[in-house]
């Protein structure tokens, strides 16, 4: 988690702190140590191939099958070719959901990164006591298990006795007394977004703070001698220095938000009128919910493809940079 900074630092062009500007890579002991590295990664590779790869293949096979209650119970296999994909790709519903997922992810990630960075920078300016206090609040939000958090947010936004409606009413927005947050698409998304941002910001903020402490003070001093203000300091020192951190974190947040299932599902089960279904929820409803498992598998494969497309830029960047590693 916090190590993300290091991970990022290791993948980026920024000055390497961790390695203390170590000399150019040495061949020999540190380098191509024969079979040792392969033995070391063997358990990971084996586990991932057996338990994830195999299942992905199985899932891929299912996506070409007509697999419903009857076939599952009788354990029969009915191949249908690309029927499932054909149906999904032709349905306007799927494309709506995809578009919605992308917009939803973008909005959330932007909010998370912006708010997270601001709070991270604030942490750096605080005295020890206040910093501890704010960190505690952040850690509490961060640590809340999703299942518990969604329950709590349903209670906070409860129509009749929810504290949010009470506060809005008390603050003078009287039409919000008794407001039903799950009655509309936008308001439902609003609640989901607040929940996700609330849970994700601490990760960004705390890591950003930890990362800023690794920036040499001299850089800031030099910047302020040049008359740079807070904003200028951020753009000319902090941001370039931590660019790999931002990229890596954004990448992770894109994956996490895009894949967010429990939050979206639990708040309103994709309602009203299926208008808040994101791709994972849609795949779940179409596959598990309607026991149309082959269809669900097809949608899940498409989900992976879309996620790969969304993160292709970063993956390429990583690939390129890994070449100059070590």
């Amino acid at each position: 988690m916090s190590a993300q900074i290091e991970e990022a630092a290791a993948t980026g062009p920024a000055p390497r702190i961790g390695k203390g500007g170590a000399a150019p890579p040495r061949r020999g002991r540190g380098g191509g140590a024969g079979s040792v590295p392969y033995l070391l990664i063997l358990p990971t590779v084996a586990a991932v191939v057996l338990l994830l790869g195999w299942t992905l293949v199985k899932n891929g096979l299912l996506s070409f099958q007509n697999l419903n209650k009857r076939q599952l119970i009788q354990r029969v296999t009915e191949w249908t070719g690309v029927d499932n994909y054909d149906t999904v790709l032709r349905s306007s519903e799927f494309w709506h959901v995809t578009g919605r997922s992308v917009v939803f992810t973008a909005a959330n990630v932007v909010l998370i990164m912006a708010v997270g960075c601001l709070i991270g920078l604030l942490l750096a300016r605080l005295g020890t006591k206040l910093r501890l206090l704010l960190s505690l609040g952040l850690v509490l939000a961060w640590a809340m298990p999703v299942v518990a958090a969604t329950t709590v947010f349903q209670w906070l936004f409860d129509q009749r006795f929810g504290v949010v409606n009470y506060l809005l009413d008390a603050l003078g927005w009287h039409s919000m007394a008794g407001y039903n947050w799950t009655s509309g698409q936008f308001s439902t998304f609003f609640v989901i977004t607040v929940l996700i941002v609330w849970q994700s910001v601490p990760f960004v903020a705390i890591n950003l703070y930890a990362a800023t402490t690794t920036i040499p003070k001299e850089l800031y001093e030099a910047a302020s001698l040049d008359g740079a203000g807070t904003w200028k300091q951020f753009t000319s020192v902090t941001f370039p220095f931590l660019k790999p951190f931002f990229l890596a974190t954004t990448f992770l947040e894109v994956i996490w938000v895009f894949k967010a299932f429990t939050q979206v599902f639990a708040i309103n089960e994709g309602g009203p009128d299926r208008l808040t279904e994101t791709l994972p929820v849609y795949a779940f409803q179409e596959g598990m919910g309607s026991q149309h498992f082959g269809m669900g598998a097809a949608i899940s494969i498409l989900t992976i493809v879309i996620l790969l497309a969304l993160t292709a830029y970063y993956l390429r960047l990583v690939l390129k940079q890994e070449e100059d590693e070590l």
Partner: protein
Amino acid sequence: MKRGLIAATGVVAMMVSVAACGSSDSDKGSADGGSKGKSLTVWFMDGSNPPGWTKAVQAEFEQKTGAKLNVQVQKWDGIQQKLTTALSESSPPDVVEIGNTQTPSYAQTGGLAQLDDLKKEIGGDWTESLNKPSVFEGKQYAAPWYAASRVVIYNKKVWADAGIKDTPKTRDEFFKDLEAIQQKGDAEPLYLPGQNWYFFDGLTIGTGADLVKKDGKKYVSNLADPKVAKAMEIYKKYQSFSKAPKDKDEATPQQADVFAKGKTGAFIGMGWEAATAVKANPEIEKEIGYFTIPGETADKPEGVFLGGSNLAISEGSKKKDLAKEFLKITLSDKNEGALAKEVGSLPNKDALLPSLKGQPAAEAAAPAAKTGGTTPLIPEWANVENAPNPIKAYMTAVLGGKSPEEAAKQVEGDMNKRLAQKQ
């Protein structure tokens, strides 16, 4: 059925431990060799098995067969996936409870054992309408266990305060009474959320509407039918007396819990939901009354949805004979009668109806049973009710101001897709 039963779960929540205390001494009794030492696994749904009754049935079964009965109470979350996957396993539960609207779709899966001989032996006088869902292509795949229909549960004090002397005999009288309570202004006349879909299903039965129609070989949505629209208008009129959310069903929040606060004139629910209310607020017990949902005219009560549960034996069970023994015991007149008495549900044969005497909820439900109906009895139907149920979306749309025609159009695509889903 699902929601109705969920509503009942509050009652049973405190007593589900019954299942756990199955430490029977199976050596006792007249065990006939073969079954001794065996154990039979039964899935009951959370809320279906009242404690006293379950204990008695368990004791009787273990005494008679010498086998052990392992009752597993299943939660409602993801029950369909759980049931489907369980039936596909090499050692599935031997006996499962299946809601009547789900039964046809499971009958065609091959996961349920045929029970034609059992039907011949003990099912000669099962009520025809209750048995229908269990029959698929002429063969018996489950046995009717119990049924229940909705009644009006009302708060006598609220009604008396509004100056109402008698319970209504027609729908118009009912509306007048609700208006009177509204005028009085102390209480919400009726608690009816926008998605009490089984109440709506009853109204469509009342107007003689069909929810699906045949289009060639396929079934398609028939929501645009004026008879459905008429039923929805009636629902809308009822709903106008309630402040309940239009986009929620009767289980979120539990309507009985709302009623328990004493600020609600009435709600439409299963008889046993009253117990949930009493549990939440014991004070309310003496105020609770029941009556049949009145129809258009006094001679014919409103159409109701006959929810119910069936018991089936899994095809993969290795103890089918023992499982049949269990069904015979569970469905015996004695135990059917006892269940009806304990929770006020309708027994699986008319001959047992007298055992409902003195059970006010059941007495209120009984008159409507004859005019009751179910959801369309086709295997495809289960897909429609999978969350998110498009009919609920239809209801919310109409209550939100759309015309029934528009709303029907809005959900038609989803509904037809579900009906056409490959089996």
